[in-house]
Each structure stands twice: as structure tokens, then as C-alpha cells.
């Protein structure tokens, strides 16, 4: 059995509002999965159901083969959770905050103390472990949250909007820590609406919209699916009248023109050589030509503004 998290037709209603709608999600061992979607698209609700903190209206969830609605303690013992906008007891030190969590997990004093020292050192908080958490910066709090997740030595880590509100440097550092987790063999479920960050660390992503997972797969396959071609070519030229020439190039699916002499081509294959040859043969100077990998941001924007998902 290799499915670590598996949901079948998982549904949650809040009154009339459908928060999660027939979700089918599978996470394999050793995988980093990104749950993406705008605020209020059902990401947090899904996570709460996976932890047994919210009861599904219908459908079924299995975490490590256990039903979290029936045996939540077993699930929570092996799954670490970092909530969005995590909070700590501000008048306690980092060590004391983690000490409480260690005791809630039933760890002995020695074992708890040893693990706390370990995780704080690993998160780079060893120097400030005796400072009150009230004095911590947002990035430090987030790392303390991750330290807490690691404290129980989980099999699965669920991180809800972990980079929200961090400055770019702190966010990148945090993403590196997530990659470390992956190297240790943890399964990571990451929720975010900051697509370009998720792209860096996730093996697969699922795009949420109004409680449904509308797209799922690796970033490359999604690009294929949504953009029709996975290649985007940007070229800058020194003249006009190229639209038809470019559109006629084999492999090119779409041409769009940005401010004056910059074109963007969508192509099914890397047809840069052919494009260059055609531009030059037209007698127009070619100033630059480059290949752009489509980002998640773009896939997302394309998909949701394509008309079929008007908000």
C-alpha cells in the first residue's frame, strides 16, 4: 500500500455553502503535494477533515490507512500540522511552548527535552530558545511552528499557507526547510495561494476552485493541459509585419503581441530555430529570442480566466 492520503468523494457543507465538493485526492509516499487555490476555495477545510478536526458531510478520507473521523488520535499522532497564521503562547519561551506540545503527545520529560533541543537546533532557533515567543519575528514563529511539527516525528506534514506573510528571503529559507523534509522521506501536503513558491518545492499540485479540484498533476503536465503547448517563446524584433509569418511557423499555436515589438509565441515544441530563420529571412532584425517555462501563476490565470470559471 503506497497511498498515504486518500480521499474519495470527500464533501463538506457549511449550511448551504459547499466548502469541499466531491474531492478525490491521493498522495503517494515520499511526495510533496501542493494544494493551490484562492482564499476560501476549501483548502483549509480539506486539511481539517484530514486531521479529524472537522467532520465530512459525506465521502471518505484515509490517512495512513486510518479514518480520521473515527480514529483521530491515531492520525494526529503521526501527522504534523502547521496551521495558517500559527500562534503561540507569547509569554512562554520556545522551549516551554514545545514542552507543552511534547507532553500533549505523551512524550516523557527526557525524550521530550532531547527532541526539543534537536528540532530547535535544526530550525536554527537554538540561540533564542529561552526567549519569550512574543519577541519572535514572523519568520521565526513559522520556523518554530515547523519545529513543533517535527517534534512528534511525523510521517506526514501538513502545512497550511506556510510562507504567507514572510519576506522573500525568509520564504525561500522556509521552502528549503520543506525540501529537507522531503529528503528525510516525509510526505508533505502544502497549501498555498502563492503559486510561484509552491512550484519550486512540489512534485505535484492540485488546483482548487470553489471546493473542487479542477486540475491535478505535475506543473509540466498542467502547462500542457491548460496552455495547449508547454513552450513559450519570447522574441524581440526590430520591425513590423511579422504576425502572419510567426503564426505560420510549424509548431506555433498562438501569437500575441506585447507593447510594440515584443512577441510571445505559444508552441508545442521548441521551434526557436525555425522562428529565427523565418524572422531573419523576412529581413527584420532579430534582437532577442528566448524560451520561457510557463509558471503556475500563468497556468492558474489562464485556466480561471478562460471563461468557464467566472467567479
Amino acid at each position, binding site marked *: 500500500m503506497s497511498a498515504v492520503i486518500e480521499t474519495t468523494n470527500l464533501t463538506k457543507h457549511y449550511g448551504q455553502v459547499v466548502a469541499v465538493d466531491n474531492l478525490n485526492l491521493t498522495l503517494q509516499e515520499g511526495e510533496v503535494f501542493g494544494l493551490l487555490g484562492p482564499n476560501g476555495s476549501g483548502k*483549509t*477545510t480539506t486539511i*481539517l477533515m484530514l*486531521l479529524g*478536526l*472537522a*467532520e465530512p458531510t459525506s465521502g471518505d478520507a484515509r490517512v495512513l490507512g486510518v479514518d480520521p*473521523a*473515527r*480514529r*483521530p*488520535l*491515531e492520525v*494526529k*499522532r503521526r*501527522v*504534523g*500540522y502547521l*496551521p495558517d*497564521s*500559527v*500562534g*503561540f*503562547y*507569547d509569554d512562554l519561551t520556545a522551549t516551554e511552548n514545545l514542552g*507543552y*506540545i511534547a*507532553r*500533549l*503527545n*505523551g512524550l516523557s520529560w527526557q525524550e521530550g527535552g532531547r527532541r526539543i533541543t534537536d528540532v530547535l537546533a535544526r530550525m536554527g532557533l537554538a540561540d533564542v530558545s529561552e526567549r519569550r515567543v512574543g519577541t519572535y519575528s514572523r519568520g521565526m514563529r513559522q520556523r518554530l*511552528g515547523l519545529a*513543533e511539527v517535527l517534534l*512528534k516525528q511525523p510521517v506526514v506534514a501538513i502545512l497550511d499557507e506556510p510562507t504567507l506573510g514572510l519576506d522573500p528571503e525568509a520564504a525561500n529559507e522556509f521552502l528549503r526547510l520543506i525540501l529537507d523534509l522531503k529528503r528525510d522521506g516525509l510526505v508533505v501536503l502544502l497549501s498555498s495561494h502563492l503559486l510561484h513558491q509552491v512550484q519550486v518545492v512540489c512534485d505535484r499540485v492540485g488546483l482548487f476552485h470553489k471546493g473542487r479540484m479542477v486540475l491535478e498533476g505535475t506543473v509540466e503536465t498542467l502547462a500542457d493541459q491548460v496552455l495547449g503547448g508547454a513552450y513559450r517563446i519570447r522574441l524581440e524584433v526590430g520591425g513590423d509585419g511579422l504576425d502572419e509569418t510567426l503564426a505560420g511557423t510549424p509548431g506555433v499555436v498562438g501569437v500575441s503581441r506585447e507593447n510594440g515589438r515584443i512577441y510571445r509565441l505559444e508552441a508545442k515544441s521548441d521551434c526557436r530555430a525555425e522562428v529565427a530563420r523565418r524572422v531573419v529571412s523576412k529581413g527584420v532584425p532579430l534582437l532577442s529570442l528566448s524560451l520561457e517555462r510557463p509558471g503556475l501563476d500563468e497556468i492558474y490565470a489562464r485556466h480561471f480566466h478562460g471563461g468557464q470559471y467566472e467567479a
Partner: protein
Amino acid sequence: MRREGSPWTGVWAVFFKELADHLSSTRMLILESLTFIMALIAVFTATQTLTQTVGEDPFIFLKLFTTDRDPLPSFLFFLGLLIPLTAIALAFDAVNSEHNRRTLSRVLAQPIYRDALLLGKFLAGLTTMAIMLAALWLLITGLGIFRLGVVPSGEEVARGLLFLLATLAYAGVWLGLAMGFSVLYRQPATSALATLAVWLFFAVFWNIITQIVAQAVRPIEYGFPEEQLRQIQMQLFLSRLSPNTLYTEVLLAVLNPAQRALGPVLVTQLEGAIMGTPLPWFDSLLLAWPQLIGMIASVILLFAWAYVNFQRQEVRA
């Protein structure tokens, strides 16, 4: 849906954390100092009155609680004010502060049920009160020994312990109420005000209301004694819905060994009774048994109310 795993898991972890928080909090420090200062003043003045009658009264240590001397009221009066206040201060932000600090989802993501969190917090509050009351009782008794020069009898100690139990139950009522409101309202200020409003209602308005209602429901039309009795019984019934009345009646029975009834007594019922003779402590306990059980039952009901609301609440902030 049946859930598996013990709801008790983690209850002691929560209990000890909350207890440590309470015992070291500024809030408790202020209230405890206030209580102890008042206790000292009340007992000091009481002993001044009592030293004149040391030899005559067999229950002089109980008198320490009840004796007042103008212009100062007795220790019990102070306690009646401070117990609800302290209990409310301990619990009014028990759950909503976890919400507001965004620690709730983090704590509930640990392998515990919500039951453990609420129960642990409640027990910690109750234990804090118990520690404070026990210290207070010992302080007063010690001061009494020092000032009066006699030691308390076994009977007095037994009654003193009953007094502690009753006060703890009374504190539990306000603790449960404050905790219930802390589940219900997200703002700590709102829950504190709501609990204080209920306390004020029972402390000030309830007696007036019971009088008016009793007069309206059981009016005295012809002046028969039966009518008067029925009105008094009606009023007593209504006023016993208030925890304050229950507490006062328990204390009356426990701290006044001569007290033989709580409520109206007919002359025929007193036939053969030697007025002013003390009852054994166990009989006094029997006298106040319904009131004591009533208070404990209210504690359980209030906790259950808080519990049900907490279980239904969404975890997310």
C-alpha cells in the same frame, strides 16, 4: 459516528500547563492579595470582639468567619464578593483566548480530544481555587489560634472542611458559567461582561424579583397564615434557583451549629426542641445536603453546556 481513543488523553498535560499559568499570572496575584488582605482585616477585627467571649462559646473558630464589627462586614461577606470575581477572572477567557492567539488549532492538532482541553482547563481553575481557599482557611485558623489562644476542636475542623467544599462548589458554578461564555463569545471582554452581568443579576436583582413574583403568584388576599406560608415558600423556592442563596444557606447550616432549619418552621415542629443547642456536624450537613447537591449539580450542568457548545464549534479562526 463512534470515535475511538480515550477522551482523557492529554487531560493532565493541559491541567498542569493551565495550573502553572494560573498560579503565576498577574491576574491571580492581584486577586489573591486582595482576598488575603481582606481576610486579615476581617479576622483581626473579629478576634477583637471574640476575645471577650473565648471561654463561653464552644464554636469560636466558626465565629471567626461570621462575626462582624461596625463598620466592617464579616469575612463571609467579603468572600461572597471575591469568590465569584476570582472564578470569573480564572475562566472568562479560557477558550476564546486560545482562539484569538490562534493556538487552538495547533493544540487540537495534537493527539488529544477537545474534551481533554476543556476538562483540563476546568480542573485547573477549580484546583487553583481550592489551593487559594485552603491557604485562606489555614491562615484564618492559624491566626485564630494565635489571637484567641485556643485550638479548634475536631467538630470545628470538620465544619471548616465542609465550608471549604461548599465554597469550592460555589466557585465551580461561576467557573463553569464563565467558561461557557468563553466558548460562546469570541471576545474575552464580552464573555467577562456576560458572566458579571449574570452574577450581578443574582446578587442584586434576584431577591427583588422573587419578592415581586411571589406576591403576584401567591397573593395574600384574606390574611390567612396558610396564604402567608404559601407566599414565603414560593419566594424561597424561587430564590433557591440562585447559587447565591444556595451558598448562603449551606454556610448558615455549616457555620451555625444551632441552625435547625432552612426556611419557615411551624411552632408545632419545634415541639420538644431545646432551642440554641448545637447539632452534630453531620446533621448540619444533612440539613444543607439539598443545597450542596444543588450547587454541584449546577456545576455539572454548566460544564456540560460549555462542553456541548465547544464540541460544535469550528476549529478554524
